[in-house]
């Protein structure tokens, strides 16, 4: 049984495109990244999976159940963290967390306390007194306190300081080791590359790629960095398949997806003091896909 499976999932908002013909599969126990530019359809996909919006066509199964027919059962096993955390302004943090647990009819006090301590969250403050980062922490606790089988997290670390980001991912990795499926939608590609085992890239409502992060990061494209003893950028004009050219004085950097032999022949003729040819990271792959 897959944690998430969509079949030709499509959503239109009137005439505006949401997502088109999406076939997404996330295995149980996976740590999965969902990447795409603004407006690509990531939030639309997530909202359909949570039953917040209905698809125009297609279907979605979460934990083996159809979201249109067994929404409440699915949501009892899902923890969701939205990109913008909004709660009842005059409630205290502890009351919001308890309210969330009570709606699930579960006693989550022990786990909630542990999470609050690890995230350094003051439970006595009122929601309207909290910074964005602290509201995110409340959102994390509400999403994770009931030990869900599937965690869906939309831009989870935006607003968190680096220490908290590390602690947050440590918590997710522990959950993943215990069998939970983690589904993260993120713009921070370095995080996806570092923590996720698989990832999907979405653009303009369509799935462009779905593979392991290792394979996604492995392409024929190379990042080439050169430093010359003089100006060298002008002498690269003969190279085809050159993207993302960045010039900084005598230093040049670019993405190259052409013939390696042609590249080496061109570099051999340049007055270079240093050169490196590396695999591009996932962020560069992402730029390559929609740049």
């Amino acid at each position: 049984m897959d944690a998430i499976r969509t079949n030709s999932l499509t959503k239109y908002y009137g005439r505006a495109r949401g997502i088109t013909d999406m076939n997404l599969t996330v295995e149980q126990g996976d740590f999965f990244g969902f990447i795409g530019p603004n407006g690509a359809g990531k939030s639309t996909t997530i909202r359909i999976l949570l039953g917040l919006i209905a698809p125009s066509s297609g279907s979605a199964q979460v934990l083996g159940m159809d979201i249109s027919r067994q929404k409440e059962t699915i949501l009892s096993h899902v923890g969701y963290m939205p990109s913008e955390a909004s709660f009842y302004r005059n409630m205290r943090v502890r009351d919001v967390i308890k309210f969330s647990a009570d709606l699930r009819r579960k006693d989550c006090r022990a786990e909630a306390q542990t999470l609050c301590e690890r995230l350094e969250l003051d439970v006595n403050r009122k929601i309207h007194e909290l910074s964005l980062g602290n509201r995110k922490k409340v959102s994390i606790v509400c999403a994770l306190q009931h030990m869900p089988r599937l965690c869906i997290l939309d831009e989870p670390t935006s607003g968190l300081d680096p220490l908290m980001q590390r602690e947050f991912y440590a918590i997710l990795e522990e959950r993943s080791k215990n069998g939970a499926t983690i589904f993260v939608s993120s713009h921070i590609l370095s995080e996806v590359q570092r923590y996720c085992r698989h990832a999907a890239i979405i653009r303009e409502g369509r799935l462009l790629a779905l593979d392991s992060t290792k394979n996604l990061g492995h392409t024929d494209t190379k990042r080439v960095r050169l430093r010359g003893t003089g100006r060298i950028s002008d002498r690269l004009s003969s190279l085809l398949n050159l993207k993302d050219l960045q010039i900084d004085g005598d230093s040049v950097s670019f993405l190259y997806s052409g013939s390696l032999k042609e590249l080496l022949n061109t570099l051999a003729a340049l007055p270079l003091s240093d050169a490196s040819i590396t695999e591009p990271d996932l962020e560069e792959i992402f730029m390559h896909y929609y740049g």
Partner: protein
Amino acid sequence: MVMIRHELKEGRITLLIWTAVIAFMLSLCILIYPEMEMQMGDVSSIFAKMGSFSAAFGMDRLNFGEFTGFFGVECGNILGLGGALFAALLGISISAKEGREHTAEFLLTHPVSRRDILSRKLIAVFLQILFLNLFAVIITAVSIRAIGESPEIRPILLLFLAYFILQIEVASVCFGISAFLTQGGAGIGIGMAALLYFLNLAANLTDHADFVKYITPFSYTESADIIAGQCLDVKYLSAGLVFTIIGIGVGFCRYCKMDVLS
């Protein structure tokens, strides 16, 4: 119970303020009655002969100089209009409030159906209306005793019952409207309550607008009719019941199917 308790807690300040204000004004009106009665003299007959003004407020059929008649007119203004405004504000914010505070996403991603959430919110609204009206009854009873009057109880209780049903109807219709709003709505609620009040006044002024009485719930709270007839007007009540059911039904149908975008 979790959802009901939460809604009651969220709305407690508003409920206490409205209850205090309406109860205070009711009590004040009753407490000044003895003073008014002394000075009334022939004023009540003058009030009854003021043409359209008298007809609009039923003072051509009520004796403003007697406690029950006085209470019927004053109660209509305070508990009728005040209670309707409160009920409208409660009803219109049932689902619009979640949109305004962007809490719908938080609430609706818990394992509770939208139908259950809405029904508990509606129950919480009805409980708040019940609390306000019960408190008004108690304060009225205490105030009447304080001034030493012993009016007939039945018409007064019927008045309170009529206003309670009116508030339930107004809240239910506003609940139906609320499902189409993503935020705000206070203006719509207040406007609707005021419109229904003035529709009844207009219907009292002319014989050519009888159909309006089937639209506005203030028709079955007409104190002159209740005090004279010692009962509520079933035909207007039935129309009110239909609007109540339609309001609740529309609200549920719309909210349970709509896309929640934030």
